[in-house]
């Protein structure tokens, strides 16, 4: 269980539940996401998930072949830009509409499965 980072606990769902506050939060979040700079390297937010973990590895293996291909392409392009110490040209930045959480649902599914397995492994059985 990670404490910090994209897989850790988040206040966002709670904050989103306040209706009036939501638009202000959205503006701030968009500003922050652009400032973080990963979109300038052509990456999606879910590309930043720490993948050296068994659950995320299993989630990645559940992507479609097309998703895996695209993900690898984005990584290659970003590391090339990193070598050049340059952002991508502006027209190649990742548009906000394409920055979707393509991996998170799979990770959540895997975490849920692991939690269920732990429950079954430690269950105390009583006869009715």
């Amino acid at each position, binding site marked *: 269980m990670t404490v910090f980072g994209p897989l850790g606990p988040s206040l966002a769902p709670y904050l989103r539940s306040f209706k009036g506050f939501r638009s202000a939060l959205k503006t701030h979040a968009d500003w922050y996401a652009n400032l973080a700079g990963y979109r300038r390297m052509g990456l999606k937010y879910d590309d930043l998930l720490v993948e050296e973990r068994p659950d995320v590895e299993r989630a990645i293996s*559940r992507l479609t072949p097309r998703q895996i291909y695209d993900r690898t392409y984005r990584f290659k392009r970003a590391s090339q830009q990193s070598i050049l110490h340059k952002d991508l040209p502006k027209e190649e930045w990742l548009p906000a509409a394409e920055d979707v959480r393509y991996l998170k649902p799979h990770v959540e599914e895997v975490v849920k*499965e692991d939690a*269920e397995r732990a429950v*079954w492994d430690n*269950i105390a*059985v009583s006869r009715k």
Partner: protein
Amino acid sequence: MLAARTSAARNASRLLQRNFASVVDTAGVKVAAVDNGEPTSAVTFLVKAGSRYENKPGVAHALQNFAFKSTAKRSAIGTVREAELYGGVLSSSLSREHLALTAAFLRGDESFFVDVLSSFVTEAKFTRHELNEYVAPVCEAESTSAASNPATRALELAHGLAFRNGLGSPVLSTAHNPVTAELVEQYASSVFSKNNIAVLGTGISQEALSKLVEKSLGKLAASAAVSSTPSSYFGGETRVENYEGPQTVFIGFGATGAPTAELAVLAAHLNPQPSVKWSKGLSPISADVPVTASVQTVLLPYSDATLFGFLVQGETAADVKTAAAAAVSALKAAGSIKAEELKKAVAKAKFAAASSIEGRVGFATTLGAKVLAGAPSNLDGTLSSLDKVDTSAFSNASAALLKAKPTYVALGDVQQLPHADEVGL
């Protein structure tokens, strides 16, 4: 006197029932159960979903291995662990015509296990990751191990030659025809309908099973029964290189239409398997088969066709040739059978038919197929039709078999193994 009478009555009630008492239409699903007081119960959902009905090769096999994976109600691990806590056994099996989903469990646990079976039928998820992580590896292992068995492989090839489509399509999937989760889901939604399923219980009362089925399968769609073109017999010859296992030849003869009693008697007459250990048996074949070769009669009855044949295996191709020639000449001579030999063959065939429903699996699949087809769910009809076989009907049936083009499969050293004309066909 009274004591004798009561004990006779008790004995009568102890007589095991070897058929389903009745078939009840519960919410559109055929439900049949028999309770002989066994210590455990078993419930089988027999579905017309064998490889015969599949629209893409391998889909039926994938559906079989998807059984007991995650459903809307419980996950795959939840199903397995909970079944283990109850001490039950879940299994699925596939034939050319039927998919059988079976749960065997202790008496009293039926509500859980019927729920497991019906939740797979009604609300399975068919996720892509389960196909890749659990189902596809099992399918691949099963088809690889089947392919390494020459007898299984010869029979698969023979079905393809004999019936081409429908019954001819292979039971197991191959790596060359990848199956997707969407295809499996599509196939499942077409075959899992009310008029395609028979629920068979042993060791459980009819009322209890009907009540559970009504509750769990009541919302299942009642779409049209799956259709397949009626089987027709073609026949042909094929020779396939094979480097492991014995040299194998399959000589098959097909007949269309409902399986006849004559063919069952013919198979019993020619079957070289001895009834007593260490003897050669009295079959007309057994005397001429070399020690290093073996001949088995194969009788595969389906709903609208039958494949009858000899599976000949031996260490060398020369042995196989001698044994196959002996089998073919015995079949040709079978037309002039003597009355007392026929009597013996009929008795053997009746025993084979009766003992096939002895076990729980044979009982559910043999009688279950009858339940699904709407035929009377007992063996009386089969046994009485075996009794009615006479010499003229028998010789007509064997002559009709020989008239059609035989199915000939040679598997092994194709340079040495005999051709069809070399064994007398």
